[in-house]
């Protein structure tokens, strides 16, 4: 780093147990922070509530995707069998809806599943090549056995009191993250 002032992303606090990070999240939430996040190696039960997060909109994406898949599946089957090239087959009608159920169901599930995975990734802003939290050497344990809270410097409440708050929540360590 040169003489330029380091660009600060925020503060990273490390915790040892799910209970500690849970209570710390409640305190950071109650202190009114908005641009902050916690990082845990597995989804800690109800931690989203301790952080005051909203419900995920993924179900809507999946529902819309599923209905779209159903419409595409049913529509194309009816079009090719009944409109584009009608052939009498086994004495069945050109558009027997009973015969179209399996493919309609499968295409609905297929599109809905794509929406579930890619909707989740899209909402999370992934894939992403780098993120400031990875600048911390300690953060490698976020996928192993440590729990973290990262408060961003752009939060209006961010200041010297942020470090004091994180330290008072029982953090094992608090460090400054470079951008």
């Amino acid at each position, binding site marked *: 780093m040169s003489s330029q002032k380091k660009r600060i992303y925020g503060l990273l606090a490390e915790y040892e*147990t*799910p*209970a500690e990070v849970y*209570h710390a*999240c409640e305190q950071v939430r109650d202190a009114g922070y908005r641009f902050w996040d916690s*990082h*845990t*190696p*597995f*989804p*800690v*039960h*109800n*931690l*989203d509530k*301790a*952080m005051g*997060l909203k*419900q*995920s909109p*993924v179900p809507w994406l*999946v529902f819309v995707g*599923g209905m779209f898949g159903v419409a595409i599946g049913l529509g*194309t089957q009816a079009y*090719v*069998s009944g409109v584009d*090239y009608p*052939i009498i*087959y*086994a004495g069945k009608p050109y558009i*027997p809806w009973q*015969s*179209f159920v*399996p*493919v309609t*169901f*499968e295409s609905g*599930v*297929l599109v*809905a*599943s794509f929406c*579930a*995975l890619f*909707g*989740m990734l899209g*909402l*999370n802003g*992934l*894939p*992403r*090549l*780098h*993120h400031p*939290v990875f600048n911390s050497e300690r953060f490698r*344990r*976020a*996928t*192993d*056995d440590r729990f973290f809270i990262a408060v961003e410097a752009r939060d209006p409440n961010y200041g010297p009191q942020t470090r004091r708050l994180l330290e008072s929540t*029982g953090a094992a360590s608090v460090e400054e993250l470079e951008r």
Partner: protein
Amino acid sequence: MSAQIHTEDPLDPLSGRKVLAEGGVSFHDITEAVCKPVEDPPLMWWPAFLLSNVLLGVLGVSVLWLLWMGPGVWGVSSPVGWGWAIVDFVFWVGIGHAGTLISAVLFLFRQDWRTSINRAAEAMTIFAVVIAGMMPGLHTGRPWFDYWMFFLPNQMGVWPNFRSPLIWDVFAVGTYFTVSLLFWYMGLIPDLATMRDRARTPIRRMAYGVASLGWRSSTRHWVHYEKAYMLLAGLATPLVLSVHTIVSFDFAVAQLPGWHTTIFPPYFVAGAVFSGFGMVLTLLIPLRKWYRLEHIITIKHLENMAKIVLLTGSLVGYAYAMEFFIAYYSGNDYESFVFINRAFGDYAWAYWIMVTCNVITPQLMWFKKVRRSPAALFILSIFVNIGMWFERFVITVTSLHHDFLPSSWDYFSPTIWDVGLLVGTFGLFFFLFSLFCRFLPMIAIAELKSVMPQANPHYHAKEGEHE
């Protein structure tokens, strides 16, 4: 009852249920136990991998010879036009059912024990479905025209016939493969991030880093992740039931005695779960030993799987009996003939192998000693695999070889190329599975940690520090 459980298995202090990872392990111990063998593979990996390569070579030769000569190299001819390729297809797609059942159905039922086995079972599913998808393709005889099965315009201006179950099957198996792959990959993302953060070489860090999509285990991400995971489980549950149902339509919609029965869909699904759990046991019993994961894939997990094998094996036995009863009760001469011919005709040997392996030997699992003995379960699981292959053989071949016209009756015998194809599919299966064990964490690390007692925010190992 509860006292009995106490003496055998340790319990979770909060939920009162059996703990899933034994020996008082910490989160870090789980990471180590799962990731270490990926970084330094156990010695047994090499013989397993090399042997599977040999069998894979058998598949290569069998397929090349088939493509060069045509399906005449197989034993199929009139009236038995569906031979081992179709038998192998149904066999493998059936095995491919346990993975999604474990990951989706047991997830929705909150069966936390699934977390120790779901990753490996899902991998098994995907590889089995790859093989299953190959088989009808080869069976067409001219696989270079297989694109006709897809929803593509072709030079003749005709489309696939959507009133035929065979095309439903293309969509069912194709969707099942895709959704299983998405589900599996989604579960892998956090664990790939764990592998990335442990990586000691730049290449590993790069590879796992790209594959984990920059996952940073953020709670804001977990919220969407958990919701999407639950929805995928909800989508995969009817899907897994639909796939073998549609496979059974390939038979049941035909008007052949022995195939044309309404019991086929549930009977096929029960058989698929049965064979899938059989294969999971076959794979995991040696693996947990070689990879030293006996404290994670514990004897309780094996016991639970044995119970499912016992249940589904009994369901399959019920279906066998009910088929006979309906054949008699329908009063249809052709139907009755087919079933008497199955049990006492030319293929009686195959029928009784099937009954022995699928209905009789699994009954040993009523005994707790058997359910808690890895060696006994391993042997029984091999019986399940054999029995389920024979089930598909019996269904396919005995119905065809004596059709409506006695002058065309014949006895089907496989050729060396049929055998080569079947043996080779095991090569491909074990080849893919050993690569999976080599490069990917074979246990869902994040999910397993989340069901450990200390993952609960109310768990306090150090009493009195907070609250």
